[in-house]
């Protein structure tokens, strides 16, 4: 065992253990670590916002470069503080309305472009390709079979999944059948995603255990 002499490593290790103690049950060590984490992160983000947004995007252009237009976003930001004065608290709604309006206006064309049109184009593939059929016939393997059925499967999956999200009709008859197939496609996708993410989480746990065993306790290299 080769214990770390670095007090920061000790602090990180002890806080890690405090957080992990929650796996047993809620306890004072977890509470202490939780409050420390919340308080530190709130303060940290305040500083981050000041240096990454308020100072470079408002203070510098307004007071050092004389860009008077920056008064408008500055005022809108200040309006939020009117919430502390109940009589004029409604002024903060202007900022909220502006923020939501701009956000929606900017995201609608981007969503139409990336999440609808590009996806539609990607789905418009030949349902059946003679080329992949010949490849499969000449070299029948799992890979060539996958290439052969991949696109038809994707098209059927897209259409059936889309039908699941059709809310204007009861899911009966053809629509019901399609939506049931759609939910199967969804669940298969979710299952794959679940497995993939669980693996990623386990690698995070391994990283933390490695820190404790190597950097702190020094029992592994």
């Amino acid at each position: 065992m080769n214990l770390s002499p670095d007090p920061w490593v000790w602090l990180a290790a002890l806080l890690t253990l405090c957080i992990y103690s929650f796996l047993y049950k809620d306890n004072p060590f977890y509470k202490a670590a939780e409050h420390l984490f919340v308080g530190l992160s709130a303060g940290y983000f305040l500083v981050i916002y000041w240096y990454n947004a308020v100072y470079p995007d408002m203070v510098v252009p307004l007071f050092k470069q004389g860009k008077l237009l920056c008064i408008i976003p500055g005022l809108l930001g200040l309006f939020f503080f009117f919430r502390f004065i109940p009589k004029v608290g409604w002024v903060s709604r202007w900022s909220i309305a502006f923020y939501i309006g701009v956000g929606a206006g900017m995201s609608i064309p981007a969503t139409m472009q990336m999440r609808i049109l590009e996806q539609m184009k990607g789905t418009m593939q030949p349902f059946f390709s003679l080329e992949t059929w010949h490849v499969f016939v000449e070299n029948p393997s799992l890979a060539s079979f996958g290439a052969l059925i991949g696109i038809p499967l994707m098209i059927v999956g897209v259409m059936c999944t889309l039908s699941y999200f059709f809310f204007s009709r009861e899911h009966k008859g053809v629509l019901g059948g399609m939506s049931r197939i759609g939910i199967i496609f969804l669940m298969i996708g979710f299952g794959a995603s679940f497995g993939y993410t669980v693996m990623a989480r386990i690698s995070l746990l391994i990283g933390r255990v490695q820190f404790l065993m190597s950097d702190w306790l020094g029992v592994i290299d």
Partner: protein
Amino acid sequence: MGQEWFSLDRLNVLIGVVVYTALLLYFIYQAKKGKELFVRKIAGLEAVDEAIGRATEMGKPILYIPGLSTISDVATLASLNILSKVAKKAAQYETRLIVPCTDPIVMPVCQEVVKAACLDGGRPDVYREEDIYYITYSQFGYVAAVDGIMVREKPATNFFLGMFWAESLILAETGASTGAIQIAGTDAISQLPFFITACDYTLIGEELYAASAYLSREPLSLGSLKGQDWTKLIIGGLVLTGVILSTFGLRFFANYFTTG
């Protein structure tokens, strides 16, 4: 070199937005005229009343997480619509509603929404501003705090509705361990599996957007939902047309959907 005011490369985007908007406006107009617009049952939403009733019977609070995204995120906006309905019901039942927020702008909006809902429910006296608060912008700092709330306050019902990232499983698992009934909904595809696994009901993707229309039955929301459904029909038709033409080697149709 001046920038172009109109990009022809994105004409298809404009057409798409115009068609979609026209459909929305048409159906909103129809709904406002009083036309009956049908919306199918959404399983997770049927459970909302039951979940609020359970909290009331047990005398425990309801925890509502409006996601971790900003106010401009569509999922957050949809979540706020549902929050309004949940808050109204909770106010009528005099059940405490806790809404911890991670975004400093979402927090005042949540306060406004809950305050208006209490007023709408005829119980402005039960509104508690101190129960709708900001925690921190740090993702895992927020999760640590919400986990703490779950084990200490022991809410009978947890709502996780909005945009979520890696914290989804931690929240849902902790909630499940406290025995709370959990209703989740998000359009974050990568987080849906975790909610489906750990929650009692999950609104999948667009069901979250449909939820507010289903719950409120307001002409604006219902009309929007109808417009979206018709847009999906058109998209389905266009995709099928594109697939058929592409199968015969005609790619010109699919190329219309290329964006600059």
